[in-house]
């Protein structure tokens, strides 16, 4: 015991504790990344002292340094600050997209799978039609129809995800409906509504959750793509996709592209890692 130093003891204990929770290191890291991103979007002012809108023209296009972590842009604004302040709209819009996709898709899938018959046929065709239009094109025409704003880009992204969630929920509902315990519940007098809320919904939602998390990552990417094309809020907004789009005109100062791209990729990677972990532990 005397040979073991104090530090190795505590790190050993920590490893035990992590093992008890069965959280792999990469998943813990991913949760840390997501925690930072959420903190950025809730309270950006605590993470930076610069202004995201007003720049210092004398300091334009500086490279990354201690005072400007990601460098500065063509107007002398601190890029790290712009990324931090852009988080809220980039991330919350992805959340809106997922909620739309899961709610509407889930409702369609639930009705189609649970009621069956002509409802199922009608919804199946609707889903086929939504799936037949390339996802990104669908998002583009929807956002064109309702106007170029980040929230509309989020709605468009959500609409393009409805079909996928409708299909997944439908197949889960059908699988559960045929299970023996549902039959037992029905035979012992459970009403349709009771079976739906007590058995079918919880079971379906369990397998939809990891996919919703995965969709969250994808939505961040699609919304970034729409912002990149200029279909989101115009500058001085600083959505990640928009920052990359502005940076592409200044490729001589590559950090203007690499820094926001790095943040986007790390966020999406973390979200995807969490989704995979949720699926495995299920």
């Amino acid at each position: 015991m005397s040979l073991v130093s104090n530090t190795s003891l505590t790190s050993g204990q920590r490893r035990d504790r992590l093992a008890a929770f069965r959280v792999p290191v990469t998943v813990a890291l991913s949760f840390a990344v997501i925690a930072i991103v959420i903190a950025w979007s809730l309270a950006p002012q605590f993470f930076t002292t610069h202004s995201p809108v007003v720049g210092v023209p004398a300091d334009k296009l500086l490279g990354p340094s201690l005072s400007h972590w990601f460098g500065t842009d063509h107007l002398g604004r601190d890029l790290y600050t712009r990324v931090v302040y852009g988080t809220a709209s980039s991330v919350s819009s992805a959340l809106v997209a997922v909620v739309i996709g899961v709610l509407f898709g889930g409702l369609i899938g639930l009705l189609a799978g649970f009621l069956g018959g002509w409802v199922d046929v009608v919804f199946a065709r609707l889903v086929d039609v939504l799936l037949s239009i390339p996802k990104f094109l669908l998002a583009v025409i929807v956002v064109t129809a309702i106007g170029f704003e980040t929230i509309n880009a989020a709605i468009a992204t959500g609409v393009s995800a409805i079909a996928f969630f409708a299909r997944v929920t439908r197949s889960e509902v059908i699988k559960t409906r045929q299970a023996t315990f549902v039959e037992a519940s029905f035979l012992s007098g459970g009403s349709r509504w009771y079976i739906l809320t007590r058995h079918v919904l919880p079971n379906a939602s369990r397998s939809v959750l990891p996919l919703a998390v995965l969709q969250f990552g994808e939505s961040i990417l699609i919304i970034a793509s729409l912002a990149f094309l200029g279909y989101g809020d115009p500058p001085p907004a600083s959505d990640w996709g928009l920052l990359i789009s502005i940076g592409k005109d200044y490729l001589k100062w590559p950090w203007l592209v690499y820094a926001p791209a790095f943040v986007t990729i790390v966020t999406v990677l973390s979200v995807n890692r969490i989704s995979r972990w949720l699926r495995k532990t299920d």
Partner: protein
Amino acid sequence: MSNAYLTYAAKRLGQAVVVILLAYVFTFVVVSILPGDPITSVLRNPQNGFSEEEIAEIIAAQGLDKPVLVQLWHALSGFVTGDLGMSMRSNRPVSTLIAEVLPSTLILAGAGLAVALLLAMLVAYGTRFVPKKYGQGLLRGFPSLFLSVPNFVIGLVLIHLFGFQLGLFRVINPDSFWATLFAAVALGIPVSSQIAEVLIANLDKEAEQEYAAVARSRGIGQLKLFVSHLLKPASLPVVTVIALTIGELLGGSLITETVFGRTGVGSLVQRSVSTQDLPVLQAIVSLGAVVFVLVNLIADLLYPLLDPRVKILGGSKRRPTTSDEPSIGSAKAVNP
């Protein structure tokens, strides 16, 4: 070519036609709920310099003064006979506009698919030969990484590294060989992720089958087992997955063309979005649906012929539908 197969083919064909027509109606509805009155705002834009009589003429020619249902009927019957209408901006047939830019996009999408396939095969087949000790896990992580990187970022990184630093291609000349190749790489990398994931999952599954165990017990080598036993059954389902990635290739080419400054269907979409040229948008989106549905139809019809183990589910009780086919692929991709 059994009877069951022919009935299956006929049913699938009928469904495809219905889905295409409904997709057209759907885009028509989405496009016609555009806020404000973009039609007159485009026509009355002083920059276009139309006189009032010309405006009335264009409105009459496009049938914009008729009720929406009549417009839909005209558009739909034109679409079925191959008439896509006239562009509202350039006063040229939409089909000509699309035909002009289509070859460039087809080259890009084709090259992108080739890159995606090559990359997916390298990664997936690599997992069979790279031992666990030497980075197999890393190789298995690739699809997830590819899925997390937006293709415009890949494009910009490639332009920065190979265009600016190494000077392999000029952004001013987007149709040169190198520029096209790098655009295809940017387009192909995210698409390869799905294909690789399905390939890896299938290879793992096939390697656990009894016939693989029998082959191993006969003392067959790793390479021989892979080439003569695992390769074919594991790779066939990819046909269906490729068909599903067509949509992603089309959507991705929109961004890739913007990043690399190529003229193509994607740049036409962008132009039509900014000028609110509705007939062009409507045509491109519904043609996208046509391509997607047709490619998937071909894949679904081809698959039972390629893989004799696949049984057509006949009878009235359960028909194979479009809604079943993709879920086979995605279920595998999602739940290996």
